[in-house]
């Protein structure tokens, strides 16, 4: 094979070796993946501007001039503000009783401290804007918008030598963001962890690739193996976005209980449930999701009411490290996570497996 199939236009654009993007909330994973020849994005939506600035400096000290990204969840819509008290008062009694029943049935303890969730109003336009401003000031190599359109910031970012990635769940969003000038578009399918769009990875990736022109398209959702990487390239992607894959890596600061659960999980152990936040969200099954899926359960509430209802359970499970109660957002590819490996090895295994797929397809040595 004359050309290395893994050296894509995304690799060319970023000056990296492998078209693998790790999305993580752990700085150590970012440094390990970047130094292994991949690309990594640190999720900073929950961090203050000062913390974001410090994290950018920390990563730079570990990776030198190699590129990396910072991800924020730019809001795309915002309801009129309400107080926490008013929101809590909006939870129907039937739902409170059902949550209390779960608490008693599974002996869920009280949370140890004040719930982070109860800092209501934690992300509005103003705070997101301040987070974004520090990313511009620090000239992070890449800004990734995990939800809303980054169009308004593209010019300012490009003037600072930065690149912008947009993560989308619909083709019309991709078209809008490509026209606005994003450097890379990440097409996220239904298989992904957390709150995804309704379109499957196998459908949205070629659909977006067909309209992307020269803009590299990255496939997201259910990607955990080299086979997935090879398949994504065949669909027209220039790389893959992986999240769940790193949650059980050696460098990840996730609780060991969660790592063990992820390693033990099969694809059938994730559930697309509205019981956690009120939005459909893919997570590992747990007593909370299972009880709300029963026919006798009340209909789940919308956001933010359902999240306010589930927050006691979530915080208590984590505070007390109750393995029987804890859960994590996880994509359908979780079944392929079978060991706690160093991030460098995960990258190497994925590359080797993808090259092997291409060799089997073509009968020629790849890479």
């Amino acid at each position, binding site marked *: 094979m004359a050309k290395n199939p893994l050296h894509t236009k995304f690799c060319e654009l970023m000056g990296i070796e492998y078209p693998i993007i790790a999305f993580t909330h752990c700085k150590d994973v970012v440094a390990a993946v970047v130094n292994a020849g991949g690309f990594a994005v640190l*999720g900073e939506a929950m961090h203050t501007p000062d913390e974001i600035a410090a994290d950018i400096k920390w990563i730079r000290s570990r990776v030198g001039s190699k590129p990396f990204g910072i991800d924020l969840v730019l809001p795309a819509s915002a309801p009129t503000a309400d107080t926490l008290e008013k929101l809590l008062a909006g939870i129907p009694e039937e739902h409170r009783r059902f949550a209390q029943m779960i608490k008693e049935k599974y002996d869920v303890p009280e949370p140890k401290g004040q719930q982070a969730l109860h800092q209501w109003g*934690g*992300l509005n336009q103003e705070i997101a804007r*301040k987070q974004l401003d520090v990313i511009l000031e620090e000239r992070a190599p890449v800004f990734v918008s995990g939800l*809303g359109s980054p169009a308004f910031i593209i010019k300012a970012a490009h003037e600072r030598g930065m690149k912008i990635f947009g993560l989308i769940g619909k083709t019309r969003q991709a078209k*809008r963001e490509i026209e606005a000038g994003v450097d890379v578009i990440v097409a996220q399918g239904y298989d992904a962890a957390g709150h995804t*769009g309704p379109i499957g990875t196998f459908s949205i990736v070629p659909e977006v690739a067909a309209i992307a022109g020269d803009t590299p398209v990255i496939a997201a959702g259910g990607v955990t193996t080299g086979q997935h990487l090879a398949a994504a390239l065949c669909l027209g992607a220039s790389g893959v976005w992986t999240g769940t894959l790193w949650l059980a890596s050696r460098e990840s600061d996730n609780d060991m209980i969660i790592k063990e659960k992820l390693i033990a999980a099969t694809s059938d152990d994730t559930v697309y449930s509205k019981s956690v936040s009120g939005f459909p969200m893919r997570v590992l099954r747990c007593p909370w999701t299972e009880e709300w899926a029963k026919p006798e359960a009340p209909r789940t509430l919308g956001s933010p009411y359902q999240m306010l209802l589930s927050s006691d359970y979530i915080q208590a499970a984590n505070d007390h490290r109750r393995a029987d109660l804890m859960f994590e957002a996880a994509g359908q590819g979780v079944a392929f996570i079978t060991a706690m490996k160093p991030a460098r090895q995960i990258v190497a295994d994925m590359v080797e497996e993808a090259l092997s797929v291409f060799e089997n397809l073509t009968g020629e040595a790849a890479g």
Partner: protein
Amino acid sequence: MAQEALPTVTGFDPAIAGRYAECDGGGMVPGTGLASREEFAGTLSGDYVDHGDPPWRWYLLTKLVRRPEGYPGDAVWCESGNLFVMEKPS
């Protein structure tokens, strides 16, 4: 997190007032680092707010005919890049 006010400019755009629009919206789920997607459709009032510089523009979508189940209220602010102005479906 510091709560100093960023400069905002409010205004009214008569060119879009009364137009039907869809919003591919969403935001961060409170207390998590996770994004949620949610869809709205309704009528643009024409009101807008620009946050910061360069301006980050948001439009007010009212008289909602589509909103997530349990969404409180009949109006939503939508970020301009996620707003699709179109003909109202019959």
